[in-house]
């Protein structure tokens, strides 16, 4: 079965869009982090697709790189969320708005 690359790209765009909306719409920082992962993975999908389309391994390498970075990012992100909300009963980014103006 051979799926046209355009479809993968379209899927990645949809994923990306969902990720953006997720960051904007969700108040739970964990879900926001997940949405960010979605952004990265949407890019990965596109990269891999194009790598195949152009027959260029650079895209694959790039994707691996992104996966590594995303892992580090998730680790740091979770740590920061944990530190920030350690004493809070609920996890809500809108509560964190002391810095403004």
């Amino acid at each position, binding site marked *: 079965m051979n799926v046209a690359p355009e479809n993968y790209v379209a899927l990645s765009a949809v994923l990306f869009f969902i990720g953006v909306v997720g960051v904007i719409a969700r108040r739970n920082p964990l879900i926001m982090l997940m949405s960010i992962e979605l952004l990265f993975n949407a890019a990965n999908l596109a990269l891999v697709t194009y790598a195949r389309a152009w027959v260029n391994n650079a895209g694959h390498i790039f994707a691996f790189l992104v996966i590594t970075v995303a892992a580090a990012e998730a680790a740091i992100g979770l740590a920061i969320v944990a530190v920030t909300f350690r004493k809070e009963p609920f996890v809500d980014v809108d509560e964190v708005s002391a*810095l403004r*103006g």
Partner: protein
Amino acid sequence: MLLYLVWLLPLVGGVGLWAFGPQLKSWAGPIGSALVGVSFIATLFLWRDATAARALDVPLGSWLPGWSFGLLLDRLSLIWTLIITGVGFLIHVYSIGYMDRDRAFARFFAYMNFFVFAMLTLVLSDNVIGLLVGWGLVGLASYFLIGFWFYKPTAVAAARKAFVMNVVGDIGIMFAIFLIVAKLGGIGYGLIFANVGSAFTPHELFLVCLGLFIGCAAKSAQIPLHSWLPDAMEGPTPVSALIHAATMVTAGVYLVARFAPLWSASPDAQELVGAIGALTAIAGAILGCAQWDIKRILAYSTMSQIGYMIMGVGIGAYDAGVFHFLTHAFFKAQLFLGAGIIIHALADEQDVRRMGGLRKQMPFAFAAMLVGVLAISGVPGLSGFFSKDAVVYGALQTGHPWLYAVAVVTAGITAYYMFRLLFVTFFGAYRGAVDPSDLGIRHPELAGTAASPGHHPEEEEPHPHAPGWLMSAPVAILIVPTIAIGWLDFGSNSAWKQFFAGFFPRAADAAGAAPISEAVSTLLVLLAVAIGFAVAYARYGAPAALRGAIARLRTETIRMPGVLVNAYYFDAAFEALLVRPARALGGWFDRTVDPHVIDAGVREAAISAQWLGHLFRSFQTGLVRAYALTLAFGVACIVAYYALAFGGGR
């Protein structure tokens, strides 16, 4: 070199006395007088050079090519220099006595010397800029001396008025200079007179003359720029004698005489100047009839007499006009100094209504004033008779019958108010002790007659007393020329006419045009004078009039027409038409336009910036999701741009 000395000695005096006055104390007066005296003598030594075929012209320096300066002593400036230094010297001597009680004795002489310097600059200059410098500096000296008692608000105001009105004159001369420089590129008299015919169109020539005449009118108190002169009487009396009678105010006459070639080439200007002169003569004389302040009477008479001179030089009778200046310098100085003796003796009383009967206490003053009055009225044999006659007849000779008529009538009025002065002051009983209100004096302090507080440290009762020799000697000396100088111009080939033979351009239509002979004219003038005297005698001098003097003065004061009291409302008109609008406009600029119009724009811009700053601040909500939204919004905009820019073009 001697001319430098003549010119600069008074300056040395002025600056030196100003700087070292406190150290010199009472020596200031003699030193100042001596310097002017030396200047006078030096001028006499220069007589031969000045009257030589080629007049004395000393270069001083130059600003630009064509703008070179120098001193010129020719016949005309010689006459003026002699009067300035000669009469000036006498008045300086007189002032030593007159100002003896004043705290600022040295400063007074500094100013007086400075004035002499300035006046010499004016008359000795050989170019228009130098003339203007002198013109401005005499105005300054006049300002200083009018405002000499600067703690008196009236004096301060009078000084400022005199200065500002004189600046109006200055700009007239400046305007003339513009035209001259624009046409000729230079400022020297020689250059100007050599090119009168070729460089200017008649219209331009008229404009030059008009500009110059504005200067004359301001300096010589010609209508409509005359109203500073009566106010200038706030200054000490010797000042009035020197500056506001003998010399400075006649600078206008000098100017017209100096620029005779221009005037002679511009008949329109001549008509204008003659008419203004005659108008001033009669208007001043009429106002002279309505004054009570002895110095203001003399001031209006000065205005009127200068009107004669201006009329004379204006219509082309230059030597007659200049001659009237000469005689006037003597008799008017005489009158002022005589009045000064009275004022000094009465502790600064100047209101003639509060005088009376002074003939007995002050015979010397009476004699001095009497000679002066006779001379100014044109009584035959005295100086004023000859000069006035020459001017009056000159009007007829040059074909101006209307001016002639005005001049004759003015002669009569002159006799009237001068004898009125004499009778009220010297005849009858002394009224110094009479309550001012009985004399109709409502506001003594406003009449300008109140003794100035603080000027005399020691309080003293007004008591008529004889003057010291320092004051009487100059007056006595002045009596001689007042009587005799007129004979210089006796006859058709007089010494005076010879002196100026060929100096002035000849009037367009000389003798022969006159419908009546000079003798008939003289008789007419004398008739007018006699009528004037008779009326004055009947109203003020006759025994019956003297008996009811107090009541009479009272009714006359109360019934005086407003138009005369207010000097034809010139001041009020200036106030309403110029001063108030200027101040209102200035106030509007200062208090409305600047802060509320111009600044408002800038202020609004600054406030808007602040407001925007706060607006952007309010966008910064601190909500991370909102920030993410703006981020996404920005991305959307950029994507939209690329879609538009590159999407359609494929």
